[in-house]
Every structure is written in C-alpha cells, then in structure tokens.
C-alpha cells in the first residue's frame, strides 16, 4: 500500500500517539529498533576490528565496555526482550497451528517461542560460557 491516506484524511498532529496508552506502547515498540540499530553498528565495527587484527579487536572490546556504549547495549537487550514479548503473541494470530484437528492453544505457541530464546541463550553459553 502506498501511503496516500494523507491525501484523503486530515493530517494528524505529530503527537497524536501521546494521547492514548495503547498508541504510546505502539510507538515504544516501534522505537525498539533504535537501540537495535546502535548494537548492529557496534557489531559491524567489531567485525571490521576483527578483520584488522588482534590489537583492533582488543580495542573494540574496551570500546564496548565504555559506560555509554554498555548502557545503550543494555537498553538494546531490554528492547529485544520487549520486542519478543510483543512479537511472539502475534504468531498464533497470524498463523494458528492445528495439529490433528485441534488448534494449539495460543499460550503454547508463545511459550514455544520463549523456549527458542532460552535455547539460543543455552547455545551461546555452551559456546562461550565454559572455561
């Protein structure tokens, strides 16, 4: 859909979404990608550093430990979990799963996706967590 609706409807004010909790949450969810983009740019810088050599790699780790970068990435972690919480409940609505004629309860699908998050975290622990 092209965004031509402004031609038919009176233009909204920029702060329209501040007037209702539902729309504020919607905007917060949209904003979860801002710290995500920050983290992605950090990751790209890390990949460049890794390509450059051992010293650059160590320098990148120090950079990642600076308070503001760490704080923004903690925000990205929180944003990813908030995004997950809002995204997982959409799945059963978009794609209900039926097994042997019975539809799987929504909670089961949501729980299955959280199990995926935990599984990935365990994989990372297996890769990086052991001495």
């Amino acid at each position, binding site marked *: 859909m092209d965004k031509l609706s402004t031609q038919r409807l009176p*233009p909204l004010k920029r702060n329209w979404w501040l007037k209702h909790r539902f729309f504020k949450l919607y905007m917060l969810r949209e904003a979860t990608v801002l710290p995500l983009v920050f983290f992605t740019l950090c990751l*790209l810088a890390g990949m460049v550093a890794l390509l450059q050599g051992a010293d650059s790699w160590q320098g990148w780790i120090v950079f*990642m430990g600076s308070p503001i970068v760490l704080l923004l*990435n903690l925000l*990205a*972690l929180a944003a*990813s979990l908030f*995004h997950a919480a809002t995204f997982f409940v959409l799945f059963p609505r978009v794609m209900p799963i039926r097994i042997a004629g019975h539809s799987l309860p929504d909670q089961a699908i949501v729980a299955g996706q959280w199990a995926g998050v935990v599984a990935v975290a365990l994989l990372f622990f297996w890769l*990086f967590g052991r001495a």
Partner: protein
Amino acid sequence: MMDKLAMNKPSMGKNSTQHKQAFDEPLWWGLFSAGGVCFAVFLPAVILFIAVLLPLGLLPAEALSYERASTLLFSVPGFLFVGAVVCLPLFHAAHRLRHGMFDISVGNDALNKKLMYGGAALLSIVALGLVVAGMLG
C-alpha cells in the same frame, strides 16, 4: 463505449501504478517478519554475551579471543550468523523506522523508503562482505 474507455483510462492508469508500487510491499513485510523473528529469538542472547558479558570480562578469557572469534566468524556458520543477526534485523528495523517516520510525519515516505531499505541493503552487503573478506584473507 469509446467514451467509457476514455473515461476509465486515467483511473485505470492510476490503478496500474498503484499495483506496481504494491508489488514490492510483500517483500518488505516478509523481510520485516523474518527479521522480527531473528530480533526476538537470537538478539537477546547475542547482545547479552557479546555486548554485556564480554566487555564486562565475565566470559572465560579464551571464549572470544582474537583467534577464536576470527575462526568462528570467518566461516560458513559465521556467514549465516551475520545473515540472521545483522541483515534480517536491519530490514526489520528499516521497516519500523520507515513506518514510524510516517506516523510522526517526518520526511516523505517515497524517499524514506529508499533511504531505509537502501541503508539496510548497503549495511547487509558490507557485513556479509566482511565475513567473505575474512574467509579469503
């Protein structure tokens, strides 16, 4: 009959351009969904380990040493990792930023669309190119 055709023509022409524009939207929504799944399932662990535990020194010293990180990243699994953790989430972010900018009336959508998806595509190519460069080097 001819009058009717002539009358319909402009509106038909308009419709056909709208169809043309709608052509790419399923692709952007598809990438948005795929990126959303990756953002939700992979990113919490990735951010926790790489951006929090690593810089805080809470991982074993050799876990992401220069040698180990290079071996892990510059490989076929590393290439897939970048696709799932960098490229798809970038298109998810581009989509949300584009729609978010429309919601708060920033810029115009035709340009935002090109900038956002173009930016996501460019950074994706850079990211995958870095992995390939590391594999060759």
